[in-house]
């Protein structure tokens, strides 16, 4: 298992009840890159994303086969601690979901859960500032850290949702259409942020927005009907797609 890859999925098959959502998915996601997953609704891209940090398992009646190595360990192994999976693999959702507590407490939430020692007030201040600086939110909110996070604009909320993952130092960030609830300006800001973060983290991002995939990712995966059709550098996929289905999808023939 080469450590060039943060995520390596081998022969992943996935069923919701009797419905098979993924067919023999083999993927290698490069470390420290932004990889986007595109494809029509129901193609399995979200299902795959949600398998990587095992949150699919909260649904009854699912079945998964194959292996998903993250940081060279198969996270489907029985000796894997779920809490650690969630710590190392952060997730950002379509709808920003800040907790109904203060901005400051949102940032510290994960930290307090995962750290065994209590940080001093000063350390906590530093953690909060650093995380918010990193998501380019510090200047906007530094004077209202004690306000409820649910009062922020959607764009700010989504940035906060990314920021609160940072203090626990995840290696992989999974993003499930992180911009689809945002307006164009918010989308641009969050895309910029993703770009800022991509050297530090491996980012896997599911999107419906092809322009976004093109702008904000280095590698691109096209999925159709639960299968991986194509996985190439983003520019290549959009300029010279190898498969007819990819070309059709990019041109908007189906969606």
């Amino acid at each position, binding site marked *: 298992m080469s450590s060039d890859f943060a995520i390596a999925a081998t022969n992943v098959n996935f069923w919701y009840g009797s419905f098979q959502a993924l067919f023999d998915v083999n993927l290698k996601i490069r470390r420290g890159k932004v990889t986007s997953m595109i494809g029509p609704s129901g193609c399995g891209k979200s299902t795959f994303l949600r398998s990587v940090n095992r949150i699919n398992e*909260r649904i009854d009646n699912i079945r998964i086969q194959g292996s998903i190595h993250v940081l060279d360990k198969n996270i489907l192994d029985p000796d894997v601690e779920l*809490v650690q999976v969630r*710590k190392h693999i952060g997730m950002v959702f379509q*709808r920003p*979901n800040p*907790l*109904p507590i203060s901005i400051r407490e949102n940032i510290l*939430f994960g930290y307090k859960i995962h750290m065994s020692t209590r940080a001093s007030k000063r350390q906590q201040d530093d953690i909060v500032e650093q995380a918010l600086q990193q998501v380019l939110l510090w200047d906007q909110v530094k004077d209202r850290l004690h306000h409820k996070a649910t*009062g922020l604009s959607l764009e700010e909320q989504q940035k906060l949702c990314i920021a609160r*993952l940072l203090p626990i130092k995840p290696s992989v960030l999974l993003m499930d259409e992180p911009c689809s609830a945002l307006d164009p300006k918010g989308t641009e800001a969050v895309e910029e942020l993703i770009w800022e973060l991509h050297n530090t983290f491996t980012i896997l991002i599911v999107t419906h927005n092809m322009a976004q995939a093109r702008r904000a990712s280095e590698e691109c995966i096209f999925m159709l009907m639960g299968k991986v059709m194509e996985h190439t550098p983003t520019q290549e996929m959009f300029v010279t797609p190898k498969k007819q289905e990819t070309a059709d999808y990019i041109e908007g023939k189906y969606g």
Partner: protein
Amino acid sequence: MHHFATTGINQRNSRTQELFRLLFMMMTVLLVLPVLIIMVTLIYKGGAIVTLDFLLSNPLDGMTAGGIFPALFGTIGLVTVALLVSVPIGVAAAIYLSEYASDTWLTRLINLAIINLAGVPSIVHALFGVGAFVIFFRFGTSILAASCTLAVMTLPVVIVATRESLQSVPMAFREACWNMGATRWQTIRRIVLPNAISGILTGVILEVSRTAGETAPIMFTGAVFFTPFLPQSVFDQTMALSLHLFVLSTQVPGVSEALPYGVALVLISIVLLMNSASIGFRMYLRGQKKW
């Protein structure tokens, strides 16, 4: 003649509409009427007797005169102990059912049991209390036995209110916590409970107001017609407002007319006060919430 003039159909429809509006309004007024009549009668006939002295002195002359202090004290004691028993059990059960239990035949059975528990007549609770707490657990006829009986009776209220307020906390908050690796308990303690507490407290206060007025469950288990002494511990018997009212109205000859009205007024005031507090509190907390 223009396009927008009223036609016969419009007139007929609006007459029907007006008829139903009046009908529904009358029913609403009818609903308020008994409460108003009760309050006005109680204040008119018993208002004069309710003074601080009435609240704080003992009954005199075979309960035909004097105050209601032992009964008032007893009711407060019974309600407090009942709360201490039912709130921890009820809230814990509701947290389990709402946050931990998955939907299986067992949880459905438990839910059914809770609904049925709420439907058991209070006199049946009373007899259950005698069998279980007075005799089996050897509490004797005491505040503890009576309060336990009240607690069992009001448990469904606490459970249902708690569960509803837990479930009103959006699922997205829980998911956000879980996805950061928080355990269920961390999620409950840090996010779910703080946001559900207003609903839980409202349920508790409603329980208080119901508990305060109950008569049947306490008359065999711990409340007495008359005792000149205040209870010294939860193993003593006590007087209670609701039973006192029943006794004054049916068992004691030569009671002045104002006395039972005064007791009823005190009892209903406690209930109304608690209910208003609950509503006010809920409104205050709702104003604080931002989602």
